[in-house]
């Protein structure tokens, strides 16, 4: 590979360095050799540190995590064999099972590697089934995770969890569901573990393996539960609606997003309930109607984003006659972007260079819909029971991939141990 500083890649740049360094191109074709002869077993190496006590060992490990680029800068747990084995109790599959390779670096992803990351991230064994399903989905080629990991758009995985496991492992679907939440901490650990894998196995280090300009949401990614209990009657859970899983199936759904924004949904004065609902819908659609091009990669098969609305809003709107379908249809219809707006912002050329012929052909549509069909938009009930806001995870997602969550045979025992360790709160008791 012949690399140049960024300025040469900008419009009207001086490309003379290409000529000056032409020999490097020639040698790349004739003399280049892989400088690594790595061939290894799937099991990683062990590292030993000497310390006076565990406190000092933990400190030394965290110093090593910084110097060896293993961490995210926040404190980590030591991935000792004991801790990793404890986490592995949550695996239904053998620890040596290979799930794939984490791009772009390509380190091998095993069940054990997932447990290792979860151990470092402060996770627990009962979280591991969700992480394993999320990693499987992440590695599905249709997600383009190999490109999104490295690209500049700061894409991060969004994992929506359905099924009884949500409450069993203390995964938040309510107030502060994107974290942090000490009462329902599972999402932070699971998402952080996935992020550590992206970095440590995938090599997605800022400025080298990951060119994300900003990297927002990347400490923990976004892992939350759909508020199935708070959804209005007739609403279909996301895992069932999008992926066809049977209702009450433990499952995850993974998409990529490149932004996270609050939308002021509630009306402010003496509006009627109908006006409040309609104004909120328009405000959300107006926000979605941004020629930001995030929706182009997922135009046909992925998603323009994940719109989260609180249960109290969904229920009130259902009382007014709105359905899951009518809300999504409305948002799709009213988020269409006038071609004049796309043209003015230069967005047309980004659609013209898209690899998907159907996406390119969509330029015939004026106004231009942000997705090929309303169903591409993920509309989900989540967030605390307060009517003022909704939340938009701006998609950057060629696909939305679902996976069933596989549980080990003694999962109930793990949940009981979690209750013992964490106490059984009023809304977070493992065994309902």
């Amino acid at each position, binding site marked *: 590979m012949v690399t140049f500083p960024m300025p040469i890649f900008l419009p009207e740049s001086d490309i003379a360095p290409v000529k000056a360094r032409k020999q490097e191109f020639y040698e790349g074709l004739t003399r280049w050799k892989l400088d690594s002869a790595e061939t290894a077993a799937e099991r990683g190496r062990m590292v030993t540190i000497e310390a006076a006590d565990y406190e000092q060992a933990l400190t030394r490990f965290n110093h090593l995590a910084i110097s060896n680029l293993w961490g995210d800068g926040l404190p980590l747990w030591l991935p*000792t064999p004991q801790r990793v084995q404890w986490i592995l109790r949550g695996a239904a599959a053998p620890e040596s099972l290979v799930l794939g390779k984490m791009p772009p670096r390509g380190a*091998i992803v095993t069940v054990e*590697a997932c447990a290792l990351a979860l151990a470092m991230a402060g996770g627990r064994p009962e979280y591991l089934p969700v992480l394993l399903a999320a990693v499987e989905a992440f590695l599905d080629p249709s997600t383009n995770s190999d490109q999104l990991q490295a690209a500049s758009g700061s894409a991060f995985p969004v994992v929506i969890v359905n099924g009884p496991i949500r409450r069993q492992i203390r995964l938040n679907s309510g107030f502060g569901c994107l974290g942090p939440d000490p009462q329902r901490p599972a999402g932070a650990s699971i998402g952080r573990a996935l992020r550590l894998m992206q970095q440590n196995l995938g090599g997605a280090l800022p400025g080298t393996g990951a060119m994300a300009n900003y990297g927002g949401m990347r400490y923990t990614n976004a892992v939350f539960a759909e508020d199935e209990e708070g959804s209005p009657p007739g609403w279909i859970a996301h895992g069932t609606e999008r992926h066809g899983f049977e209702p009450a199936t433990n499952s995850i759904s993974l998409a990529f997003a490149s932004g996270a924004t609050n939308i002021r949904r509630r009306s402010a004065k003496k509006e009627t309930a109908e006006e409040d609902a309609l104004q909120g819908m328009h405000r959300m659609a107006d926000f979605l109607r941004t020629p930001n091009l995030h929706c182009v990669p997922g135009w046909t098969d992925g998603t323009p984003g994940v719109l989260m609305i609180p249960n109290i809003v969904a229920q009130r709107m259902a009382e007014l006659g709105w359905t899951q379908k009518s809300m999504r249809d409305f948002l799709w219809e009213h988020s269409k972007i006038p071609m004049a707006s796309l043209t003015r912002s230069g967005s047309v050329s980004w659609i013209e260079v898209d690899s998907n012929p159907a996406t390119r052909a969509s330029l015939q549509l004026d106004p231009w819909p942000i997705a090929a069909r309303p169903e591409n938009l993920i509309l989900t009930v989540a967030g605390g029971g307060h009517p003022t806001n909704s939340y938009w995870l701006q998609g950057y997602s060629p696909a939305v991939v679902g996976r069933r969550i596989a549980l080990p045979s003694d999962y109930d025992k793990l949940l009981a141990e979690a209750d013992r360790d964490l106490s059984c709160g009023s809304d977070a008791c493992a065994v309902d």
Partner: protein
Amino acid sequence: MRIEFHDPSGTIAVSQPHAARVGTLDGKTIGFLSNEQWQAHRMLPLLKSLLESDFPGARVLPIDAFPQGNAEIPKDATCALVQQAGVDAVIVGNAS
């Protein structure tokens, strides 16, 4: 005390070695795979002219001889087209 822990960076197994390099570019057929971004439309034609000047015996294919775009480059169909064209070496650019 000694504490042992797992190396978090995992392991890499090279199961698909990179293609062998050609000994010389003289007499060879050289192709381009362009993603048409990051000034590839200027830099790759410059490289083509340099190759033609420095290796008069080489056959340098047009920049657009093969499908272009980030999504097109890794496709098996594109790879097959490159092979069918009898290309000995290929320059891929520009990285995004």
